[in-house]
Each structure stands twice: as structure tokens, then as C-alpha cells.
């Protein structure tokens, strides 16, 4: 007589897996990645490749050294690497993403228990670490010269100009399509929105966090403005807002899951968005901070929150 399998209910499972979710995130990031490479050329391509390989490598290394099951096939390290690269200026030296990936994967992710246990977004933690440690490398913005071969001239990003109360030279069309200085993956707002819509259609993220975040920035910019400058439509396409709203504020591990929480968090996001002067790339700082407001679901997570 055959032995029959005994298991807990239910006996049917959906097809969705961690891998399929991460794959969807990667697919959603393809338009913005492609536009980043289009605008910033070969250096951008190299940084993206190095960052992804380094992230996967550090995940593998950590798990090997600690004799844990190797889970690089779930593609989460690829997503971290890709997001990290998208948050770097194209002029960054090649060691920057390697150091960033090491910090993101080992410190922000694995030390807290690996996938899903991190209290902050690993890519953003990696970036914050880099920014605090190597501010020069991390804030040398260059003009988008693409594959023309021309030397990329140093430029100020539209957001940095906005903060001084001066209207930037770049037109609205430029900021929407990404023909401006900035991080590799953040400049092309339209590609990020397309990716975001893909994630919404695939039910990977809910509309609440990105829409509320963007709306908060829009409404409050219209109402309060910066140093007398009220350009809400222009403002929402600058900086890393689209990248942050669709791809980082929605990070599962560090975003709130209670439907009523995002509206409350909007105030917090706005507060950090506009008052924190230390970090120039504001949205990321906001998302990092708002991770702390995430209602830590289980009591064991309280130790992670300060």
C-alpha cells in the first residue's frame, strides 16, 4: 500500500511566489533602467551591472559563511542591487556600488534576519551609508550625455536649484522625460510611472502609498511652496519622488500594511521632505525615516525600532 502524504490545509496554493514578485519588480524597473542608460551612457550600464552582481555575491557569501540556505534565486538581491544603482550618480567610481551593496545586503538585510526581516529598505540604507561616508562621490551630478562620447559636465539637479528658491533651467518636459542631471534611475519620471502602473496591475503594490505620497507633495507644494516658489506639477517630477513613491516607499518589509496608516504617514513624509536640509536627495531620506513609523507587527520587531 502506498504511503499517503499528510499535510495541513489548504492543499491548493496560488502560483505567486517571492520570486515572481521580485521578477515583476525587475520588469517594472526595466523602462527606467533603460532610460537611465540612454541618458547616462556606458558608465551607468557598468554601475548597474556591478551593483547587481555585488548584491547577489554578498548575499551568497553571507549565507555560505553562516551555513544558511542560499536564497539568491528568489531575486530579492537583484532588486536591491538594481535599486541601489538607480540611486547613484552616473559619475560614481566603480567601488561605490560594491561598498553600498555590502552595506545594504549584509548590514541592512542579513544581520536583521534576511528577507522580510529588515526594518529599512536595504538599497536606501546602502545609499544613506554611501552618502554619509563619501559625500563628494555621491553628489557629483553630471549632465545626461548618453552615448555621445562627450565629457559629461557637472550640473546641479533641478531639485537642488528649487531648494534655493530659483526656478531651474530644465523645462517641465525635460524633468518628465529625464533629460536632466540626477541619479541614474530617478530622472525619467514617465518610465518610472509606467513601471509603477505595471506593479499596480500585477497587484504587487497597492495604489495607496504612491498616490498618497505624490499627492501629499503636490498639495502641500501648492499650498506652502518653497521659499515663495509654488510649482507643484514641476516639483513632483523632480528628485527621486517617482522612484521613491513607486519602488521604495512600497517596500514590503518597511512599509505599513494597515490601510489607515499611509495617510498618517503622509504628514511625516511631507515633514521630512521639506524640512530636512542635511540630505539633498529628499524622498529617500523620508522613506528611510518613515520606516521607523512602520507599525512593527510582532513584538520581536520592537527591538529594531528606536
Amino acid at each position, binding site marked *: 500500500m502506498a504511503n499517503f502524504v499528510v499535510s495541513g490545509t489548504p492543499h491548493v496554493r496560488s502560483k505567486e511566489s517571492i520570486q515572481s514578485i521580485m521578477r515583476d519588480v525587475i520588469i517594472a524597473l526595466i523602462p527606467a533602467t533603460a532610460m537611465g542608460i540612454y541618458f547616462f551612457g556606458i558608465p551607468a550600464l557598468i554601475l548597474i551591472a556591478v551593483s547587481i552582481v555585488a548584491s547577489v555575491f554578498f548575499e551568497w557569501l553571507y549565507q555560505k559563511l553562516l551555513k544558511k540556505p542560499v536564497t539568491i534565486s528568489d531575486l530579492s538581491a537583484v532588486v536591491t542591487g538594481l535599486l541601489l544603482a538607480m540611486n547613484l550618480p552616473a559619475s560614481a567610481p566603480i567601488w561605490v556600488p560594491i561598498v553600498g551593496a555590502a552595506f545594504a545586503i549584509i548590514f541592512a538585510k542579513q544581520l536583521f534576519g534576511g528577507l522580510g526581516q529588515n526594518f529599512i529598505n536595504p538599497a536606501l540604507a546602502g545609499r544613506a551609508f554611501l552618502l554619509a561616508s563619501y559625500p563628494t562621490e555621491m553628489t557629483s551630478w553630471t549632465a545626461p550625455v548618453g552615448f555621445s562620447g562627450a565629457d559629461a559636465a557637472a550640473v546641479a539637479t533641478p531639485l537642488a536649484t528649487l531648494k534655493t528658491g530659483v526656478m531651474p533651467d530644465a523645462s517641465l518636459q525635460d524633468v518628465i522625460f529625464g533629460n536632466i542631471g540626477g541619479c541614474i534611475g530617478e530622472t525619467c519620471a514617465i518610465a518610472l510611472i509606467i513601471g509603477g502602473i505595471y506593479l499596480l496591475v500585477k497587484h504587487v503594490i497597492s495604489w495607496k502609498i504612491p498616490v498618497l505620497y505624490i499627492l501629499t507633495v503636490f498639495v502641500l507644494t501648492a499650498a506652502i511652496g518653497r521659499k515663495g516658489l509654488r510649482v507643484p506639477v514641476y516639483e513632483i517630477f523632480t528628485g527621486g519622488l517617482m522612484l521613491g513613491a513607486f519602488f521604495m516607499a512600497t517596500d514590503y518589509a518597511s512599509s505599513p500594511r494597515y490601510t489607515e496608516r499611509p495617510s498618517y504617514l503622509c504628514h511625516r513624509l511631507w515633514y521630512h521632505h521639506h524640512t530636512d536640509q542635511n540630505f539633498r536627495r529628499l524622498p529617500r531620506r523620508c522613506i528611510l525615516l518613515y520606516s521607523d513609523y512602520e507599525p512593527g*507587527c510582532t513584538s520581536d520587531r520592537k527591538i529594531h525600532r528606536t
Partner: protein
Amino acid sequence: MQALTFKRGVHPPDGKALSAEQPIQVILPKENSELFYPMSQHIGAPCEPLVAVGDHVKVGQKIAESPAFMSSPIFASVSGEVVDIRPMLVPGGATVKSIVVKNDGKMEEIEGLNQGRDYTTMSNEEILAAIKDAGVVGLGGAGFPTHVKLNPPKDTPIDHILINAAECEPYLTCDYRLMLEEPERIVKGLQIMLKLHPGAKGVIGIEMNKPKAIESMTKACEGIDNITVQPLVTKFPQGSEKHLIYAITKREVKSGALPASAGCIVDNVDTVVAIERAICKGRPLMRRIVTVSGKGIKNPGNYKIRIGMTLRDLVDAIGGFNEGANAPVKLIAGGPMMGPTLYTLDVASVKTTSGLLCFTQEEAFIPEERNCIRCGKCVEHCPMGLQPFLLNACALKGDGEGFVKHHGLDCIECGSCSYECPAKRQLAQSIRATKKIEAGKKAAAAAAARAKAEAEAKAKAEKN
């Protein structure tokens, strides 16, 4: 009519095509086969045997009962000799004292059987007594004694009698076939129930994925004022009592309360047919419809069996398992979302056995459990509005207090969370286990408090 539903829930692939078009076939136990009648096939007090080893029993003979109100008698479904009274495995995994009858194949019926009565001339007490005496319990799976359900406390007026024909469990098609083949009997049974509660209206709730059943039932209800057919959105767990009530009446049953508190009585399709048989045909509950399905069985279909047959006899009677790559590796009693697995076919069929699924290697695939990624999909889909990831964490840590604080005891164990979980975590399983422990603690605490109060009252009385 617009389809109604509840909030959240999941959409598993329904798998009903395997058996949906198979008409109900009658399967009689083979001569000399043994039938098992476990003493507890219902919620409430277990029965005590009325027969002894060596007795000869006939079809329809009451062989076990209990004096408790919350109980239901058991009837022989074949004629033959009582050969043993011994523990036997039932589909839930428990081992229960059972009367073993060796079928003589004659199907001799006991006198007084088949004396159908006209329910319109019977008093409510007579109807309730007849239902109790026929051993009718909820055949949807819980086995709640029907006479108790139909007789709620006087202070809770009933204004809705809902027939649960959602059949939201994938693969199962027995209720569907009944609705196609015997719609008049369902309506008649519902009319009997409505006679007990004249102020109520009868609603038959059917999921939209069964258009033929909706058509058939609508036709059968034509010209009857107080019965309507209500289409429901195809979504699991639509057939959960609380969610059916919410979908149709928009009322919520409070935590720990019975449906009657919301003015509703909910009964499964097959139960209603059993009521009709008990009253109009004068036959107690001896048979039920079972869906046997899955890719591991040769002839998936819907079978009318005699309660007490072992599942092995049933499988043998319908042609057996597939061989080779399509051999079954997992057996499930009931549907794939909530049905327990069986490790053997030597299990007695009971009143609540609605299905037997034979899953092949491919269907029975158990994915590896990974880290919770905190995506919140379990919260998004939990029909009870709970936070399964949180309850799972409490369960794994043995934090019973936290589990109860986060309403773990309200879990209906539907498995929607595990179904949706992309990390393939065994959420429902861990929650069910902890729920059992905590529910037991709660019951023990309540019993201790009661005993203490009684002791104090007694001491006080003695003092005086």
C-alpha cells in the same frame, strides 16, 4: 439579480470540471462488507450503542442515541449482523468507538420505515421531533444537529433561512448535482423549515459559477412567494456560514455567537434534502452524496453512498485509483481548502463526509516555506479581517496571549491566507494548532470559574 458577496477572500481554481457533469450514481455496499457507525458524527454528546455484538439489525434501525438534547441518533444503513463494537478511524483523524455491521446484502428494512407524512398537518414540535428522530445534522461539514439549529432561543426571532448552495470549495460538486437533479426536494425541505419560522423568508444562495443550478432552482421556486434564489459572487469562502449571512443580509455574526443571533438559520443543500426525506418519506439519514475527484481516481464523479461504508469500499466500487504517474499520493476528506488529509482509506464515511479527493504528485505539490516578506497579502485576503502573518508569528513563538489578543480565536480556518501567501508559509496550519490550544485553555478557565462560583455558592449556603 445582482450577485452578492463578502469582503476580501480568494479565488482558487475551482477544479469542478472533473466531476460536475457526472450524474449522481447510487453505490450500494457489497455483500459481506463491513460498515462502521462511529458514535460521534455530529457536534454534541456522543451516542451510546442500542445494540450488542451478535444482534441482527435492519435498514433504518436506530442503533445508537444519546439522551442529551445536543446530539443526534445513528441508524443502520444496511441489514446484517453486529459483529463488533470497536474504535475506528473517522475522516477528521480521530478514533471513535464504532458499531461494526456485516452487510448481509438483503437490505431488509425495519417496520415503520417509509411512512411519509404531510408536513402541513404537523405541529412544529412534531416536525422538530421527526427531524431529531431521523438523525439529521448539518451535512456541509460541521455536523451541527439540525433540530437544535431549527429551534433557536425564543428571544432571537428568525427572519432568514439561508440555504447554503455556494459550494465554494474547489472540486466538490455534490451540492451542484443535487440542485440539478432534485431541485423540488430542496424546495420542499426549505418549505418545511419555513413552516417552523413563518415570519422568515427562504433564500437559496448559489455561486455564479453554477448557472445551471441557478436556473434549475429558480424554476423549482416559481410561484413560491417566500423563497428566492440569490446568485453569489464566486469567491472562497462564500459558503462559510458567517460570510453567507453577510453576503445576503449584510449582518455580521458577533464573535463567538451563533447565526441565530443575526436572525438567520443556515443549512446546506444536502441537509435540506435530508429533512425532506425524514418528513415526507419517513426515512432517517442513512445516505449522503459524496464527490470523489482529483486526477488520481479513475472515475471522478458524484456518488450516493450508504453512510458507514469505508472509503476503501467506495473507491473499489467506483473503479479504483489510477496507476503509475497518476497514482494518488494525497487523500483529502472534503475540499482542498479545508479538508483534512487521510493516511489510509480504511476510514468510515460519516454523515459529514462530503468529498474524497485523490491528488496526484503534481496536484499534491507542497512548496517550500520561506521567510515572511511582509507583503500583507494574507491581511488583504483574510475574510475575517485578521492579520494571519501576526498570528503565525505568535503561534511560532508560543505566544498564546498575543494570539488571543489579536483575535486568533475568530479564525475560521478557511486557509485563504496560506493560499495567497507568496512565501508559501503554513499560516492556517499554525493558526489552527494554536487556536486549539487557546480554545482549550479558555474552556478550561471557564469551567474552573464555574466550579469556583458553584463551590462558593455552596459554602455560602452551608454557612447560612
